[in-house]
């Protein structure tokens, strides 16, 4: 099912929706990530695995994938799981105006990155979440600057699932 993913064919994606958040779906996605899958199949595997998995290991290599959407999704999941390796990708993505592949309604990669940062970084003084589309550019710049200054100080609180500064 995951191997058959075709983002140009909603049939295939809706079928995959049915296995998200299930142990079977997670295992199937892990298997695809371990294979040489690429393109939409790799996108789908990343999406399904990142939706529910607790093991960050299969996601790490995806941070260097050529597909910016896959990189961003993997980075978001890694940050959510307490892995700071995702921050660099998110920081590099905040200004990316390209569409996050598979997003419905359409979502820019940069918006997704900003959303992830706002969601999982709970430190005092983080940039305000953009209230409107017009605030996105400023928010992207503010987050890039904030991460440059504070990324090395961030620690993960597994209880709350958020990152904080000392």
């Amino acid at each position, binding site marked *: 099912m995951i191997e058959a993913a075709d983002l*140009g064919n*909603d049939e295939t994606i809706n079928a995959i929706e049915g296995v998200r*958040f299930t142990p079977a779906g997670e295992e199937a996605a892990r298997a695809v990530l371990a294979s040489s899958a690429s393109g939409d199949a790799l996108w789908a595997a990343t999406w399904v695995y990142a939706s529910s998995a607790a093991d960050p290991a299969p996601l790490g290599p995806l941070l260097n994938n050529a597909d910016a959407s896959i990189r961003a999704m993997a980075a978001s999941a890694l940050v959510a799981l307490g892995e700071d390796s995702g921050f660099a990708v998110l920081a590099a993505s905040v200004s990316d105006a390209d569409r996050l592949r598979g997003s*419905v309604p*359409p979502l820019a990669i940069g918006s997704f990155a900003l*959303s992830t940062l706002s969601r999982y970084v709970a430190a005092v003084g983080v940039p305000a979440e953009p209230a*409107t589309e017009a605030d*996105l550019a400023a928010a992207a710049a503010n987050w890039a600057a904030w991460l440059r200054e504070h990324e090395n100080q961030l620690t993960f609180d597994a209880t709350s*699932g958020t990152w904080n500064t000392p």
Partner: protein
Amino acid sequence: MRRSLGCLAIVFGLLLGPALVAPVAGSTAATTIRSASYTTPQGAVTWTVDHTAKIITVSVNLQIYAGCRHCGAAFNEFIEGRMESLAKDMSKRIRDVWNQHNHYYCYELIFEVNITVGRDSSHVDGDRVGIRVDNSPVNIRDFVYGLADKDKWNSNDPADRVEPINDPDHPSTWSERHNRRGHDEYAHEFGHVIGLHDAYEEVKDPTTGKVVKSVLRTGAPDDLMGNHNYPFLAQQTINRLVERSPVDRSKLKCSYRVVGSFQEANSYVACAGAVSPLITDTVEFTVTLTGDGASTVTDFKNSKTTFKALTTPVPVSTRAGGVLRVRVKSDPEILDATRGTVKLGPDHDPVKVVVAGVYTLGICEFYDRTGRRLSEGATFDTDVGTTFDTTKFVGGTQEGSSDLALGWTWVITSL
């Protein structure tokens, strides 16, 4: 009947493949319903009309549940601690966007949403639309799963409205984060629940077949259903929503009392050859619009034209050694209206009313000490009218346009 159509669509889907299948997810493309266990939640969306208060109330029952229940500490914290507050937040966002004094003709639409927290997709109450809350780090797909034909996005036929369904294998899904782009996704998805399609479409690269961008559909208004950046509803969308709904539109009646006042200073319209410092007239009538597009113009009340004493345009000395004087032999009547027609604009507004009647040119008597002479009177068919907007009443009244006939001003009162 609608349920039968839905089942028929599924059968087609199974027999003939996806190309002919009608069921769609509100925000995604046409797809086959793969689960035979789907249900149409009865009573989840109800429409009631208060004809006295002129209010249409749309009541919606939703039930949200967490998408992932085995996803670690952060997710569990979310599940246990935040679902109730999320339900309240969703309700507020939806109400704030939809309850902005939207009207269908003179009826204001009120949207009520009741959200409870449920367990999972297999245990959604029968009278609620189940919504899986995507609490994952990759919550990038929001949609309502329902029965509809996505190509009928701009149809106002009740048969083409989106009908949400509860399918355990294909649950409608909303992301936990609603405001990540300043967008009102909950309000947008709510639009699907109550029957609307997306007003945008995806554009694919013809070579690769991959989606490259999304654009507003041709002819679609740039509002909430076409662009999440715009948290308001265009009149076209509101009209479509109501016209697709189960509401019996023929029973929706909106009446307006229209008063037209004619006034002209130094007027030559009283009778030929004379001028009146001031001439006035009024006409009243009632315009009734019904939700199915019908209209009537009735209850005409024509006042008698009044005018101040007439004179010649300039003083005229007569051979008899006096000044030519004028008096009215037969009164003028600016308008005696007897019938009217109504033409509605593309989204019901503006309402253009044209009333037809007769204008009577009075007969004046010009005289001096030596004799008198009468002007010629006449009658003419005449049209006057005004336009107004059903959604722009302030305190129940509105000034109508005066561009259809010179000299007239109009006040419309919503009855």
